Each structure stands twice: as C-alpha cells, then as structure tokens.
C-alpha cells in the first residue's frame, strides 16, 4: 500500500499466543481476535505501532 509501512502479525502460532494485548490497545479497534486467529484491517490501520510494543512475544513486525 503506497505510503504505508507493511505491518505483519505472525498469527500462525509460531510466535503469537493469542493473548489479545494488541486487540485491547489498538486505538482504532481494527485488530480482531477469533480464538486462534488474529487479523487486522489493513485499510483502517495507521501503523501507529502501539500493538508492536504491546505484544509480549514480538509477534508483530513493521517494516
């Protein structure tokens, strides 16, 4: 997406522990936790990176 950095949530379970920390802190309420799946809305996300800090296991990356 032009002008936006790329955000990646590793939600296959290799890193993600489905704890919901990113969901609760997202200021735009655009991350969704569905049992063992975490998704985010690419269109709403502003790459503010607060979820990157909230994740206790480093499963969210921005580059």
């Amino acid at each position, binding site marked *: 997406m032009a002008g936006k950095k790329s955000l990646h949530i590793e939600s296959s379970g290799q890193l993600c522990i489905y*704890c*919901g920390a990113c969901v*609760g802190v997202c200021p735009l309420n655009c991350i969704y936790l569905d*049992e063992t799946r975490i998704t985010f809305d690419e269109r709403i996300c502003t790459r503010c990176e607060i979820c990157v*800090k*909230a*994740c*206790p296991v*480093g499963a*969210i990356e921005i580059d």
Partner: protein
Amino acid sequence: MVKDLTTDVLVIGAGPAGSMTAKWAAKSGARVVMIEKRQEIGSPVRCGEGMSKEWLKEVGVTPSSRWINVEVEGARIFSPSEKVLEINEKHAGNEVGYVVERDGFDKQLAIDAGNAGVDVMLKTAATGIVRENGRIVGVTAKAFGEPFTIRAAVTIGADGFESQVGRWAGLPTNLQLRDMDSCLQYRMTNVDCDVRYCDFYLGKVAPGGYVWVFPKGDGLANVGIGVQLSQIKSPAEARTYLDAWIAKHPAYAKGKKIDMVGGGVSICAPIKQTVTDGFMLVGDAARMIDPLTGGGIANGCIAGKICGEVAAKAVHAGDASKEFLQAYEKGWRVRLEEKLYRNWLAKEKLCSLSDETFDKVVDALEGVKLEKLTVHNILKAVHTKYPEVTREFEAFL
C-alpha cells in the same frame, strides 16, 4: 439455524465480571442471557492468579478448595537491590489473600450464575452493536459460526481487556502507551519459593511494572512480568526482561516451564464514562483494573454486582436510559473510584523513582514495625533515615 432472541439483560463475556453481573441481574428478577465466545469458561487462563479475599462475601462467593491453591500470609516487595519490605495481612488491610486456579474460579462464578437462572451460550461472539433511535438495543452475534441477533432492554459489555464492545458503544476506553503493561507469565515447577508470600520485584527489572512470583504449592509458581508500554524499546521486551530476571535467580532458573500466558493490563486512571443509553460496561473492559497492583478480579466482581442489580431495576422500571443507568455509574464510583485514583497516583510516583531512591525507601522501612502501611507512615519512616529522599513530599509529613 440459530434463532434471533430477545431477553431483558444481555451480558457479553463470561469472565468474573460478566458472571457476577449476570448472577445479580437474575437474582434481582431479570431474564438474563450471557454469551461467551470460547468453548470453555475460564480457559485459557490469562492471569497471575493472585487475589485478595475480603470482598468475596460482599458479592456472595463462598471460598472453595476447588479453586484455592494457597492462602498466603502476606506480600513481599523486593527493591532493585533486593531489600525486602514485608507486608502482612494486618498492614495491608486484607489486601493479600489467595492464589487461585482461575479456570476453576471462573467456572464457579458461571455455575452460580447458571443456578440463579442465567442462560449461558458458549461459542457465541458479539459481532456488532444494534442501535435504534440512538440507543443500544442488543447485538449481532455468531453462535457456532452462524449469525443471529440478540435484543435486550439492557446490554452489558464484560468482554475483558481486549473489549471491542465498549468501543463499539462509543465509550472512552482507549489507552495511551503509559496506560498499559505488556505481560507475560510462565507457570514453573521445581522452583524454590515461599508459599507464605506473594512476591513482587520492582525497579529496572521491570520498568513501569514488576516481576511477580505467586506460589501455587508443591514447588509450582506463577512467575510473570508486566512492563509499561511507554518504557518498551524493542519488540518482545516483556519476554526478554522476564527471561533475564529468571536467569539471575537460581531458585527459579532451575525451574521448568510448563505453561506460558500473555496479555495486556490497563494501569490508567478511572475512565470518564461507563454507561450510555441501553448499555453498561464492567470489569477489565471498563478499565477497572487496579493501576498499582494490576489486579482486576475483585473490582470487576464488586462492580458486576452493582451493574447486575441496576440492570434488573432498569428492566422493572422499563427505563434503560443513560440517566437511569447513572445508578450504576455512581454506584461503582462510590465503591471503587477513590482507591483506583489514589493507587493510580501512587503508581505514577513509583514509576518515577530511581532504583537508588527506591532502595533507600525500602531500606528505611526494613525492620521498622509500621502499625499500618499508609503513605504518611511510610514517608515518616523514610524521613527519619533518609531526609533527602522525602524532600519533595514534605507537605505530607
């Protein structure tokens, strides 16, 4: 095919605050539906599992060996150089209490709700709010993947830290970086911990939070950490800090990890608004976690009882307006807000102390027999030994 349904009170989320709200609404004569997105109430556990105990009677919960692992005598606060401040039951005013099996505890509360007449729906998640003429009249949901609608006179969000319902309802629950700790915990076996105490390690081992060790008996303990988001510099620091702390403590480094949980904990001041037309928010979803201790169970349950009772009254009165629901807004604030605010201020101050100052404070208190652990008594004791440390607090002395 799931049928649309209508009820008096709808509770979203079957954690402690949700079950408590549902139970008291049912006991007060309302028809109650409680939905839970998971297949099993209480599992997976996302909690340190330490809680105080004096409030249980107030909300009608009988302590049971089915969910109590250990009854502790007190708490120990370890300063950065590991000087120890012991807080026993007398000092802490019953603030200390049990280390529990959270899944068992949550199930107990859900059983109490079920026995009070609450209809519980598992594998049922709210997907959106339904509004009519500006007021909330229920939610769209999915049960076992199938969409349907639940209409209710009063809808209650008890969907925990990651609450989306509160934000859909337009309530101000957003957090700043400084308002949240990122947490990680291992359940460890084969550790040497003292089952008489819940231990807290403060200072740079866990910036803006602490490392905890809560004993579960038989060499088992929950060893966890919370780190304030505003102090995190790179991803996964909660894990980095916790692993570093464990490596430096032989009594825990020899332990074996058998479980790992993570999560977010809000450490903010009380939010400004928890009700709107047809809707109330309760527990961690309403940011009712104690910002100093990080504990959310007691506050969620206490507020839940008030919330359930007000919901039933609103049903009987045929009035679920924001004005009527102020009884809950006022009720929980009278009971909890002053302490939440005071502990938020104390937490802000604690976070600003250097390791050196913090060591001095604990050193000054070590061996001093304080009648009661009040801010005034602490400052007086510190002033006697390190007057320079208390200079900025002289107004309180």
